[in-house]
């Protein structure tokens, strides 16, 4: 497996904020919507996206471990349930097969984990409204599960970044943009644009 920091294109000393930003930019770049009508490109983008997600998860886990909180347990607890097969299919990218199993689960067995996995599959399809409902319900049914909470937080972070490039590019609001720090952030944003090709004008 590649070094997760290398996958995200950040240095080991990068701050959490920088990592989030790099992750968000990559996620946007390789989003399946960008490859509508180009199945081959979409397939390879999907593989890259998977690698990016894993790298981000790994860094998060590693850093959380350093911080003193251990939450390794939540990642292994799922192996005992009948959804083991679904997880395996998802990790291999066989989403439609995974969906078949999920959708044929009797309604009595649709607990927190079912909702979580269904949510993951729906996210993959771009069905965000239903996906977030499922993930929200999973967190509601099992409030202590870190895996579900993290999935939710990751999406929440991506959502909160909506319009960031627009606001940076047009200097909307924020009078503190005059400040040195903000100017630096601004420059940083522009550099990223060159690499990430998010804003065609710079």
């Amino acid at each position, binding site marked *: 497996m590649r070094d997760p920091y290398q996958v995200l294109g950040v240095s080991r000393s990068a701050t959490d904020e920088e990592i989030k930003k790099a992750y968000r930019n990559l996620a946007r770049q390789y989003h399946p919507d960008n490859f509508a009508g180009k199945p081959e490109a979409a397939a390879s983008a999907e593989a890259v996206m998977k690698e990016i997600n894993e790298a981000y998860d790994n860094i998060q886990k590693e850093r959380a471990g350093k911080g003193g909180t251990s939450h390794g347990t939540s990642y292994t607890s799922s192996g005992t349930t009948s959804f083991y097969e679904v997880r395996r299919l998802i990790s291999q990218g066989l989403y439609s097969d995974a969906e078949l199993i999920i959708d044929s689960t009797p309604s009595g067995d649709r607990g927190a984990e079912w909702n979580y996995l269904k949510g993951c599959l729906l996210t993959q399809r771009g*069905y*965000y409204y*239903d996906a977030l409902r499922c993930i929200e319900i999973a967190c509601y049914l099992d409030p202590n599960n870190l895996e579900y909470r993290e999935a939710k937080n990751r999406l929440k972070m991506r959502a909160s970044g909506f319009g960031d490039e627009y606001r940076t590019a047009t200097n909307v*609001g924020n009078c503190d943009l005059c400040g040195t720090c903000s100017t630096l952030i601004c420059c940083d944003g522009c550099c990223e644009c060159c690499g990430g090709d998010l804003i065609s004008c710079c």
Partner: protein
Amino acid sequence: MFGYVRPLVPQLKVMEYEMYRAVYCGLCRAMGRVTGQASRMTLSYDFTLLAMVRMILEGTVPEFEQFRCAAHPLKKRTYVRENGVLDYAAAMSAVLAYLKNRDDFADEHGAKKGRAVLAELPLRGMQMRGVRILPEEAPGEILSRMARLSELEKAGCPSVDETAAVFGDVLAYVFTLGLDGESAETACTIGRHIGRFVYVCDAADDLVGDIRAGRYNPLAAGWGDLAVTEDGTMTDLVRGSLEVSLPLDLEGLGRAADRLNAAHPLTPIVRNLVYLGLPASMRRVLYGKEPEDGGLSAMTMTE
């Protein structure tokens, strides 16, 4: 139609705001010309966006003129002069207003039904005048999509994504009709996302009322008992999920808006609408009224 599709005015340049108003006034005048004076009552922000997006994609540069209008006799208003795009938006507005009213006519009861019955005749007249400048198949195509939506609604479909997608299809068709190539693709994406956004916002807005009245609501159907609290307000679960899913869905719209010709004078307005206006509408729907200061304090707050 719904009023969720507006730019965030405080963040527009004064010039952009004037232009936006000019498109709005231009559309109003086009409606008077194409579908009759009465149709100007149905003027909406949604079709102002349709007109702006189509002008950008078709490369129509708006020409401005001043005029004293009957609704605002004191001051001259600037408006966009007659062009094909405005006429198209006016005609589409009439067709959709008519079809929407027919839906209410069939589904509603009480006062709303009465209103729908009263509006039926004038709206039919407008629609007939509007249809003249549209391709022959247009009303049928829209009608079949609307029919699919009411089918899903009657069946109590629990998936917001599915019902919203059908409404997205309606607007995608309206935005795309007559365009081809890359413009058609961009128009289609914009229409689809705007449709979905409006549909979901509307569902969230009506959630409590629909449950009380026993009407179908896609959010209520999906969330079941978790949709509203005991005292009849939207639960934090629903709010929390929409707060994330609405912006995620808007990502695709942002990418389409970024593809619009940056040199066109209306493009900054559309981008403001997408990146600032729609999230502001979302906040209004989820958290109630905009703050008393028009959101200025929040906007100038340092992060």
